[in-house]
């Protein structure tokens, strides 16, 4: 093909005389560009570095926590976690009251939150009319993003007074014989912490449960319905049974969140390092003692004790969260979860 034939076949003819010459500069330019291997290498290297920073963060935290708590690790060893005396003045530190406070408040919050979260998830997934669903799920998602300190603020002024005046006396009257609900009743205490924690972890458990329930294929539900089951039976046998691994994961994730919750708990738990049977008595959690006493820790040993509690908290929440993620991933195949 000659050059002239080229031009006449370029549908309608190029408009400028330089157009035919423009062909070669374009090709020549592109041929001169090279293969960008260097740029590609630098780029992927940079991205890799940033991805590795995620690991670096974990390692950094671990290293700092361990080095900061060396003193008390060496002085007290493992018994640190079984001692119940918290006596900064005499340099005697035992973390048991805080472990007790964290564990009990978290379990309490699960006891309150899980049935409710499950109920909400069931409603939203299986019973809710579609037009209502998105606004309701939006609301529950909002609950999850309210900052802890705002929950605490609300709890102090709106939750505690009715607890102290109405709910707790009622519990003392009805359940006082168990020993779990006895005077004195300040409002602040383990029970209040459990309640506010329940409110805080509910959206997480609920939205994860919903995701897990939605991942159960339609075919399962239809198979059960086809056998003449009622809607509840279909939910129980066709959905919940299949999703139960993921639901357990969601609950464990909620537990993980409850274990580490700091501000709201600090504001309502009463901050007394004692192990008492009554849930209405003031208590203390691991995160709370750090929050309250860290900046006033007067000596190295004191600080080290607090950091060691932080280390324990870190390790426990990592394990709990990892376990939860594995369970949830197993059902939802690793899709990222929003709102947690």
């Amino acid at each position, binding site marked *: 093909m000659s050059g002239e034939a080229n031009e006449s076949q370029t549908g309608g003819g*190029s408009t400028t005389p*330089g157009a035919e010459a423009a062909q070669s500069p374009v090709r020549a330019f*592109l041929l001169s560009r090279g293969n*960008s291997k260097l740029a590609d290498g630098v780029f992927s290297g940079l991205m890799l570095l940033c991805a590795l920073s995620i690991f670096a963060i974990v390692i950094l935290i671990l290293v700092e926590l361990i080095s900061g708590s060396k003193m008390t690790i060496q002085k007290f060893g493992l018994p640190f976690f079984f001692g119940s005396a918290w006596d900064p003045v005499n340099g005697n530190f035992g973390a048991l009251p805080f472990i007790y406070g964290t564990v009990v408040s978290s379990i309490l919050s699960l006891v309150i939150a899980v049935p409710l979260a499950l109920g909400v998830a069931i409603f939203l997934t299986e019973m809710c009319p579609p037009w209502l669903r998105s606004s309701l799920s939006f609301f529950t998602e909002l609950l999850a993003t309210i900052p802890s300190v705002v929950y605490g603020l609300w709890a102090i002024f709106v939750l505690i007074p009715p607890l102290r005046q109405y709910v707790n006396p009622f519990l003392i009257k009805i359940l006082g014989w168990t020993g779990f609900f006895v005077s004195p009743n300040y409002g602040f205490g383990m029970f209040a912490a459990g309640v506010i924690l329940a409110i805080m972890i509910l959206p997480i458990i609920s939205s994860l449960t919903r995701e897990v329930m939605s991942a159960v294929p339609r075919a399962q539900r239809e198979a059960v319905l086809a056998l003449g089951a009622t809607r509840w039976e279909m939910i129980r046998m066709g959905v919940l049974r299949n999703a139960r691994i993921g639901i357990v994961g969601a609950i464990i994730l909620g537990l993980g969140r409850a274990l580490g919750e700091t501000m709201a708990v600090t504001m309502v738990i009463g901050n007394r390092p004692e192990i008492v049977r009554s849930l209405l008595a003031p208590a203390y959690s691991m995160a709370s003692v750090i929050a309250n006493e860290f900046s006033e820790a007067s000596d190295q040993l004191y600080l080290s004790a607090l950091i060691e509690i932080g280390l324990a908290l870190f390790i426990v929440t990592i394990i709990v969260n990892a376990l939860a993620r594995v369970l949830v991933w197993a059902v939802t195949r690793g899709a990222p979860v929003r709102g947690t």
Partner: protein
Amino acid sequence: MGVGIDVSDLNAWYGANHTLQNISLKIPANHATALIGPSGCGKSTFVRCLNRMHETNPVGRVTGSVRVGDTDIYAQASPVEIRRRIGMVFQRPNPFPTMSIYDNVASGLRLNGFRNRKILDDVVERSLQQAALWDEVKVDLKKKSGASLSGGQQQRLCIARALAVDPEVMLMDEPASALDPVSTAKIEDLIFQLKSQYTIVIVTHNMQQAARVAENTGFFLNGKLVEFDATHKIFTNPTDKRTEDYITGRFG
């Protein structure tokens, strides 16, 4: 000007799946070559091996040699330069959604660093004319999004985008299969016009289309190249019985 493609002993895998087996053929320059065959026969995979797109799949693997002009495209480590010399149009139109029509066509040059505004304008206009889209979009080139066009227009936009980098070869993987008959006819006219300047390889499951636009046709079956010959011979007097069975509609 286009160049010829010389394929010899090409084998391709998707993971453990031996998708192409010992393919050898010579695609002539400045002609249109059609590749036909039933679904899953490997013709799309073959075409993607010609511009090293097959290896973008993490489990894709290729052995053998493909010479475009006098360059063995697999001899060098980086496929980027090869892909600038070989343009590709995909089955479903894929204009860049965040870019205007102008930006879409200019993207191959601009994003490779080309700055000269005047030449860019010329190239965009020329490419859109070659793709028979110029008259329809010349009014708000720079404001209208590439994704706001109709299906047939989008595909012609993609053709213009591929032409703008002045490739030597144009690969087309079932370019009209997602389009309506009118758009299909327009695309076929385009191929007719373009083939004198470029070497065109078009994958199609539409045998009439192959007969209309291509001088040569290759028939693929189960990963093998069964027959490759002048189009009129393939369709009127094929050598291999399997080709004849396919042409006459016994399968596929």
